[in-house]
């Protein structure tokens, strides 16, 4: 076994100490259509969108006036006034005002982590029901004053005399007055997420054509899912928007090939990442209804899938040991090993398309013999997945990616897909969710059809 800290532990070690837990099930989900930043939801706040997503879920399952165990959601781009965002959304919704709520934040993994945390509470018997969710508005993003201005204002507050105040004001410089808009740059490297991925893309030699193909499939799959009515009970329109605004049902390899690269232009290697194979800034919100079997049965609610288990991982991208968005590469083998599963045991993969190249780099790492040996502690490559099982109803490249809302979108859609597959095959279907996140993190989870 390798000495690398990311290697996979033996399955028995984890399983032996696990106490008997009950099941947490996904009843269903609801989201609003995602819209490109600055578009249809430009005037909607995070609280507006999260409330709308909650109200659609409540209407779908008749949860009016219900006191749920807990609601957890979060936003990546968050105003300081939204310190109790989820609770405020609950109070504005049709749920009982006696439903508690908390905010959670783990960058793009926020939505999935709310599912994991609440499912765990249900499994432990602490709560019977819960709504997990997430929301993000890149349009209504907070604007922050500069550090210089902020320090001056705080010091002014503490000053007691006029001379002190004048002295403090004199420290102000014109550059302090410029507001700071939020970016997607990593605080420790100064590089944007796209530039980080460009490094990984080049490292794994992911071609432009392969990336465009992932993007094309994403649009085609999402469009087909809409056409077949798959989203009829997963999406509720909002502000006149009925489908994801980023969806281009008529895109083609030719159209995608015509786009100019936007990331990795200074790397020396050929730049391959375009606006077509990268997710745009997006506004939107999603929710997932979770429950114990007893709670769902008592209300005659459907049970689509069980939340089986989850794993988080993080990588050292700061020193360049791994790419920023590569944490799931380690989280998935650890999670599957805990359940004695391999990639071949998974019926559907939902690998979040932060960039087409993120998905392809992840697959490339798993298919690489040396990576498997040196980083995962295996005898060879971790494995290859059947691409026909990947993101079958489209993913973030087509739907868009309102950071914290992506996890809820994926879990609800996958649960429905698994339920349909399980019902038609007559045997349980298994799905894997993988979401990468800023800060070199990743959260992955297993769902199984009911």
């Amino acid at each position, binding site marked *: 076994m390798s000495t690398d800290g990311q290697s996979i532990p033996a399955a028995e070690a984890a399983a032996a100490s696990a106490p008997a837990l009950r099941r947490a099930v996904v009843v269903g989900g609801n989201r609003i259509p995602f819209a490109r930043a600055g578009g249809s939801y430009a005037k909607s706040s995070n609280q507006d969108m999260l409330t*709308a997503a909650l*109200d*659609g879920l*409540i*209407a*779908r*399952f*008749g949860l*009016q*006036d219900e006191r749920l165990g807990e609601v957890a959601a979060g936003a990546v781009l968050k105003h300081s006034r939204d310190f109790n965002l989820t609770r405020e959304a609950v109070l504005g919704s*049709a749920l009982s005002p006696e439903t508690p709520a908390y905010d959670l934040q783990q960058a793009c993994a926020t939505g999935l982590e709310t599912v994991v945390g609440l499912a765990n509470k249900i499994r432990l018997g602490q709560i019977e029901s819960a709504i997990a969710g997430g929301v993000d508005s890149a349009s209504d993003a907070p604007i922050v004053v500069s550090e210089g201005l902020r320090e001056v204002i705080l010091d002014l507050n503490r000053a007691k005399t006029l001379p002190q105040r004048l002295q403090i004001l004199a420290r102000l410089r014109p550059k302090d007055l410029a507001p700071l808009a939020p970016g997607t740059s990593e605080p420790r490297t100064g590089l944007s997420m796209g530039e980080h991925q460009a490094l990984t893309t080049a490292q794994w030699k992911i071609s432009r054509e392969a990336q465009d193909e992932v993007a094309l499939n994403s649009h085609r799959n999402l469009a087909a899912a809409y056409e077949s*009515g798959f*989203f*009829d*009970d997963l*999406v*509720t*329109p*909002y*502000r006149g928007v*009925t489908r994801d605004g980023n969806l281009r049902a008529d895109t083609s390899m030719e159209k995608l090939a015509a786009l100019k690269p936007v990331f990795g232009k200074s790397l020396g290697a050929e730049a391959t990442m375009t606006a077509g194979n990268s997710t745009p800034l997006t506004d939107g919100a999603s929710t997932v209804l979770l429950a114990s079997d007893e709670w769902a049965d008592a209300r*005659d*609610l*459907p049970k689509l899938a069980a939340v089986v288990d989850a794993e988080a991982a993080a990588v050292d991208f700061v020193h360049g040991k791994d790419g920023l968005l590569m944490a799931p590469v380690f989280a998935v083998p650890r999670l599957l090993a805990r359940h004695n599963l391999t990639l071949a045991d998974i019926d559907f993969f939902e690998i979040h398309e932060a960039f087409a190249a993120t998905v392809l780099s992840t697959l490339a790492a798993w298919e690489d013999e040396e990576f498997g040996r040196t980083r995962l502690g295996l005898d060879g490559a971790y494995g290859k997945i059947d691409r026909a099982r990947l993101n079958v109803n489209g993913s973030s490249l087509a739907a868009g990616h309102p950071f914290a809302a992506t996890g809820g979108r994926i879990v609800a859609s996958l649960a429905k897909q698994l339920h349909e597959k399980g019902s038609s095959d007559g045997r349980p279907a298994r799905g894997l969710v993988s979401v990468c996140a800023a800060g070199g993190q990743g959260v992955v989870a297993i769902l199984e059809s009911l």
Partner: protein
Amino acid sequence: MTDKYAQLVNQGIGRNVARKLGLPRPAVLRRYRPGQALVTGPVVVQGDSAAADKLAAELLTWDLDVRRHAVPREKLGAIILVLDEVAHPEDLERPVLAAAGSLRDLDAGARVITVSRPAAEAGTPAAAAARQGVDGFLRSLAKELRAGATGNGVLLAEGVEVSSPSALAAVRFFLSGRSAFVDGQFLTVSGNGGSLPDDTGRPLAGKIAAVTGAARGIGADIARTLHRDGATVILVDLPAAGDHLAAVANEVKGTALQLDISREDAGRKIMEHAVQRHGRLDVMVHNAGITRDKLLVNMDQARWHPVININIAAQLRINEALLASEHFGPAPRIVSVASTSGIAGNRGQTNYAASKGGVMGMVRATAPLIARAGGSINAVAPGFIETEMTARIPFALREIARRANSLQQGGRPGDVAEAIAFLASDAAGGINGEVLRVCGQNMVGA
């Protein structure tokens, strides 16, 4: 959607001016609110038949102030003319003239109701003449009534007693504010089936009802009314209308089912949803409908096909699925929204009128099929109703359409909903295959 003219002539200076100029002054209709008294004053039951006695006795148990003879200059809530035994047109004279003397004493929002037998079932030409005479008499009287008073008739088929649940329920419906915009109409009670509710304020208590087109307009008010009357409502509308649908669903504490009813499997989807959540479905309200108006000379498939498909073909498919299910009912109810356009025709609406005529044909032909399952199917044909859809009609046309009925105003979505809620109730089980117009006695059509 508000009728500004009606508001103007019913308050302050506007009222005086309109009165002096002799302008039409549409009355503020007496509409039902929970807890409201059934009628505004004493009820006079005219007629010498056994049925008249029976009905008068029954009304006493409703805590009504029942009179067999009117006292002059006493404000009346209603006059009920029981004419079930008329055998010759001359038999009408005495009860009709007796009622005539009381007409001036009718309160605002009062009711005149005839109870008679259908002419088609009469044994002799003279009896048929007398029975058909009631029809012409009532429809004319309805046009003479003022101040929001209405006139309607209950027709008792052979073998149906006036004390049968649906006959009593029809009388109650016509007396109450629930029938505010129903005027000059006859409703046939064809069977002794049905059962009266324990609580007349919640006649749909415990019922599971699905309503299509529930996101807005008449459909949203149907959902609200069914909920008010005690039903649990499944609200169905297009996925694209889901935000409005969710808002109404949360208001009435029902469930939203986003579904295109023109899909082949729509009936199965509705049934699946109902069975999953509630174990069964009791009431199906077919309200969803579209218009694609164009003169026939300019009609194309894009305007014809969807109107037929959504307004009638979808109803046929859904009914087939429901009637094949063991989970529809017991005592299933189907209520469809037809239209006066389907009765009288409307220029530019050949497609719409064909679809709505189709609804009425379907309702009549489905009646014996659903009766075998212990159920009933009926239609409600709205006239001019104040909705987002009719608000788009050009002003002058809209004003004409609004005033061209005995009540001189458009109805409200809630008026249609009240008729539907009535026909969906257990008490209406003896009413099957009927089309009830909610049109304020519109001048077009019958």
